[in-house]
């Protein structure tokens, strides 16, 4: 049987049919004729139920997956190389687009690295650190919401998807109010933040916490006890502690294996040691446990957000050192952030020195003493590490992101092999890989 859609080809391992479309019955018929049960299914890189442009290569025997492999790199953007041609401050604009669901974590990790190289960790104003924590925790909520929403959609539960995106919009409204952008903010800068909170933000934040406290239990009602949801999720995507450690899996995957490892507790940054929150764990090692952990983490994040709001005291949000602080005074323009007209008037009209300073710092940027550093933050997906190398120049010499999605995705094979084809999707969704982070 030879059709244009399924062409047979003799190889050393037997006849291989490459299917690009057409009538499935014909394909199955040819497979049956060949007396070989083994079928290799190429799922993706464009497939509605994989996360982004992930390619899964599954060898299936009937309904059972005997081997599973990942093909990645379909979204490789060369961000790490691009960073080497921009100055240190411009770097945040690039790193924020890596894992586009957790922009603030990328920015924070990168900026903490640059600050460590500069040796100014102690000079970061408290308000900046608190606001970083606030933004990161809000971001954790929005990232987990997308994970739960798309995970639900891939199971066919559209309601969860609608719920998740409804609540994510509330977070994005806050981001837009605070940073001017819904995504890809580049708001956390080496030395502090691009800008202070706008007026009215605190009230909106309080309002948001109130709304979310009302909305979060809805996920419990909708999904946690739902027998269909449990049947699909429980005991699927199993990876125990040994597997997690060997494969370097961190974040909710590691915590679903029972180890309460969270960098916010074990290796605090941005003053996380001063906040009260719990690290939820599960002992089921499966997709359902990860779902419960993500739900609980959102509640804990709300707790931290509340503490941040209470703790905010007036003060600067950028280091005092004018050689590092981005000189522009930003204002919320009609199209998002822009330069403040008053500031431009001042430097153009009255202060020659300020103008020169502004010009030098914007075109040249600051120099960072030579050396290397590794900083890690606990992103919603796990340990997000940044290896920053400086050669003393105005641009990074090398920036490498150890993205949790990239490392966790390696566990896909261990989770899927031996299971059902339908469970592959659940397992991948429970890893929550974001291809922007995987491929960078």
């Amino acid at each position, binding site marked *: 049987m030879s059709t244009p859609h399924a062409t047979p080809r003799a190889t050393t391992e037997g006849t291989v049919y490459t299917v690009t479309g057409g009538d499935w019955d014909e394909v199955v018929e040819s497979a049956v004729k060949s007396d070989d049960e083994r079928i290799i299914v190429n799922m993706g890189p*464009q497939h509605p139920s994989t996360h982004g*442009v992930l390619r899964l290569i599954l060898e299936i025997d009937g309904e059972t997956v005997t081997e599973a492999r990942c093909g990645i790199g379909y979204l490789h953007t060369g961000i790490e190389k691009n960073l080497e041609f921009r100055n240190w401050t411009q770097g945040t604009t690039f790193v924020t687009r890596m894992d586009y669901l957790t922009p603030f974590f990328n920015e924070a990790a990168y900026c903490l690295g640059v600050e460590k190289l500069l040796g100014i960790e102690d000079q970061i104003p408290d308000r900046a650190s608190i606001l970083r924590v606030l933004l990161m925790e809000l971001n954790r909520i929005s990232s987990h919401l997308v994970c739960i*929403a798309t995970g639900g959609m891939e199971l066919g539960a559209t309601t969860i*998807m609608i719920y998740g*995106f409804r609540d994510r*919009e509330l977070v994005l409204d806050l981001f837009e109010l605070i940073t001017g952008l819904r*995504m890809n903010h580049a708001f956390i800068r080496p030395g502090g933040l691009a800008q202070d909170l706008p007026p009215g933000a605190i009230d909106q934040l309080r309002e948001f916490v109130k709304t979310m406290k009302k909305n979060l239990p809805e996920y419990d009602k909708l999904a946690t006890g739902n027998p269909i949801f449990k049947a699909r999720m429980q005991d699927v995507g199993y990876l125990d502690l040994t597997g997690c450690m060997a494969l370097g899996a961190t974040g909710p995957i590691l915590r679903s294996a029972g180890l309460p490892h969270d960098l916010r507790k074990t290796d605090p940054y941005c003053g996380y040691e001063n906040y009260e929150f719990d690290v939820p764990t599960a002992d089921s090692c499966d997709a359902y446990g990860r779902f419960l952990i993500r739900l609980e983490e959102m509640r804990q994040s709300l707790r931290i957000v509340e503490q941040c709001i209470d703790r905010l005291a007036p003060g600067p949000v950028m280091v005092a050192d004018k050689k590092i602080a981005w000189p522009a005074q930003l204002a919320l323009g009609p199209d998002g952030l822009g330069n403040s007209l008053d500031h431009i008037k001042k430097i153009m009209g009255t202060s020659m020195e300020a103008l020169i300073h502004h010009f030098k710092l914007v075109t040249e940027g600051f120099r960072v003493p030579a050396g290397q550093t590794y900083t890690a933050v606990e992103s919603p997906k796990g340990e997000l590490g940044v290896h920053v190398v400086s050669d003393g120049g105005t641009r990074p010499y090398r920036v490498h992101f150890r993205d949790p999605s990239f490392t966790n995705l390696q566990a896909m094979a261990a989770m899927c092999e031996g299971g059902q084809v339908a469970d592959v999707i659940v397992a991948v969704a429970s890893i929550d890989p974001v291809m922007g982070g995987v491929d960078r």
Partner: protein
Amino acid sequence: MGLEEKLPSGFVLTTVEQAAGWVRKSSVFPATFGLACCAIEMMTTGAGRYDLARFGMEVFRGSPRQADLMIVAGRVSQKMAPVLRQVYDQMPNPKWVISMGVCASSGGMFNNYAIVQGVDHIVPVDIYLPGCPPRPEMLMDAILKLHQKIQSSKLGVNAEEAAREAEDAALKALPLIEMKGLLR
């Protein structure tokens, strides 16, 4: 395609054009072609608040064979380009392409070895949508503009005529490097 392409020029053809355009624009089926950040905004557009269902196109088709609109949402890498072209080729005519976001339109800030500098190197693009990423409102605006374009699209001999006119105009147009004036 079908009978409508063979109609002689005149009153009947223009009437069929209008009817076909109206029918086509009222139920556009987008293929899910989410690549990067823009894909998240595309999903947001389909979700509750922005509700693409108002324009009869909330159902994103998983299979390109059931879709007639490809929203290229995000940066297209050199590795993804052949896949993208294959998905485009698998879509039945008539089909349209929206290039969502600067990365898909021109490579954007990723002017490097990994990214295709504009998806129009691979597939013909109908609407370029700027933004990084564009807001859901902008995507809806692009979709509505595409609806207008679909409504006014030509058939048969009229389509050939329109294609010829477009080609003539393109041949006469000044290359970007020879244009003068302020950079805006």
